[in-house]
């Protein structure tokens, strides 16, 4: 049985001080409600992360508050990879015959918290009884990985500048992007030190937002086929670049194998560049770019993160995978195949989603 993404939407990623979680969810839903209400809805899946710890069973509340006529409601939380998990659940439900139409609604409201708290929340994806207790978060671990990468491949910190330069340039034409402005090498090199050697532009801005995808078992709407999903998890040694490579490579290869395509048939990539070094490691794990050279090999016309990635479109935590899907589908021409790699902050978990514009 084929699974189609018949419609999708996204709200501008931003610091929405004037909007709450239900306002954002409603905006994303409103954009695709004609498709959903004409087809009818079996299941609503809410994909969220930070917003769930003080909003238990959020899906029921969202459905009730904004009026989504779902027969079943499921909540999915998987940190930054929540949307990948939600897509896998939706695909499984449709392929098994349990559902014929599933709406995934990703929503996140991070900026009601002060930066100090958000920075601490970034440790939630690590071991809360160890790293969390000592105040260590994913940014500091990413800094250590960044240094290891520089040492292993003998590259300077300037090697990483090309990524924010490209992502910010691309975000300028993405109306949903949080930071749609051009940056210069000078701006990057003189930006704030966050955790040596990471500069501000090596991180991704945490944003509020909401995005959706409507999956059906019939060929309808925008006519995007969800061909397959590959997934790999590995929680130990998350500072180890080889393990990150293994997780992403394994999920990527699984997804291609399940879709019965080769990597040469992939026209577009959307990766989870939570940190600049994660962009490099994920690109290299696909085998489409050389180890230690990937960021130099991505050219201005490469179809990678066309909407500006997490770096400039923004990091919307539990809704990020749906934003990645949104940006990828907007850049996917007729007949092309794209792969969206939605990982957790340090790629302990990787979902690789293959889509085709028929």
């Amino acid at each position, binding site marked *: 049985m084929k699974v189609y993404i018949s419609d999708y939407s996204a709200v501008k990623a931003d610091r929405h001080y004037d909007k709450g979680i239900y306002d954002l969810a409603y905006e994303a839903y409103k954009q695709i409600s004609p498709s959903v209400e004409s087809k009818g809805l079996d299941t609503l899946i809410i994909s969220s992360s930070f917003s769930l*710890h*003080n909003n238990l069973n959020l899906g029921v509340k969202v459905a009730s508050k904004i009026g989504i006529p779902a027969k079943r409601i499921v909540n999915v939380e998987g940190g930054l990879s929540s949307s990948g998990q939600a897509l896998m659940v939706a695909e499984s439900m449709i392929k098994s015959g349990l559902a014929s139409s599933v709406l995934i609604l990703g929503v996140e409201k991070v900026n009601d918290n*002060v*930066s*100090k*708290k958000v*920075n*601490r*929340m970034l440790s939630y994806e690590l*071991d809360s*009884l*160890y*790293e*969390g*207790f*000592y*105040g*260590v*978060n994913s*940014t*500091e*671990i990413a*800094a*250590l990985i960044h*240094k*290891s990468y520089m040492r292993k491949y003998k590259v300077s910190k300037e090697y990483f500048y090309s990524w924010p330069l490209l992502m910010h340039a691309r975000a300028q034409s993405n109306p949903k992007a949080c930071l749609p402005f051009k940056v210069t090498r000078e701006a990057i090199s003189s930006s*704030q*030190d*966050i*955790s*040596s*050697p*990471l500069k501000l532009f090596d991180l991704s801005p945490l944003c509020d937002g909401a995005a959706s995808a409507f999956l059906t078992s019939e060929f309808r709407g925008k006519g995007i086929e969800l061909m397959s999903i590959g997934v790999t998890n590995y929680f*130990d040694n998350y*500072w180890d670049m080889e393990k990150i490579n293994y997780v992403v490579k394994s999920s990527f290869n699984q997804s291609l194998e399940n879709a019965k395509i080769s990597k040469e048939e992939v026209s577009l990539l959307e990766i989870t560049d939570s940190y600049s070094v994660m962009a490099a490691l994920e690109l290299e794990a696909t085998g489409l770019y050389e180890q230690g050279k990937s960021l130099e090999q991505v050219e201005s016309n490469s179809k990678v993160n066309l909407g500006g990635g997490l770096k400039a479109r923004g990091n919307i935590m539990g809704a990020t995978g749906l934003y990645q899907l949104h940006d990828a589908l907007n850049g996917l021409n007729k007949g092309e195949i794209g792969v969206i790699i939605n990982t957790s902050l340090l790629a302990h978990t990787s979902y690789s989603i293959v889509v085709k514009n028929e």
Partner: protein
Amino acid sequence: MSRLSVPPYWRERGTYYRLEGVKCRKCGAISFPRKYYCPSCNSRELEGYEVSREGRVINFTVSHQQKEGFDLSIPMIIAEIELNDGVRIYAQLVDVDPYEVREGMEVEATLRRVETDSHEGIIYYGTKFRPKIT
């Protein structure tokens, strides 16, 4: 949610104060923090093991990120340390200027305050590392 309540802090006191992990009875692999199985051979035959309190810095970062509860720790030096028994851990380095930290620096464990919960609340202690006093 961000700060531990007293019961989990009490339950983990061996991890925080004595660096208690586990050692596999079959293959000898050490896990810290403790696990319920051996990630090397999948055995569940484990015994308590206190990891070495001395080692050397193999990687480090100086963090300027403000975090709730850690205002007094900024800048925070986070190091990846290879302990003398081969175990690798992350820990905060103290008693050293960020500019003086070097990879290869010999360090030793020291019990320090991690965080305080208001004037009347609990004071959380844990293990940090400092340059080895010879």
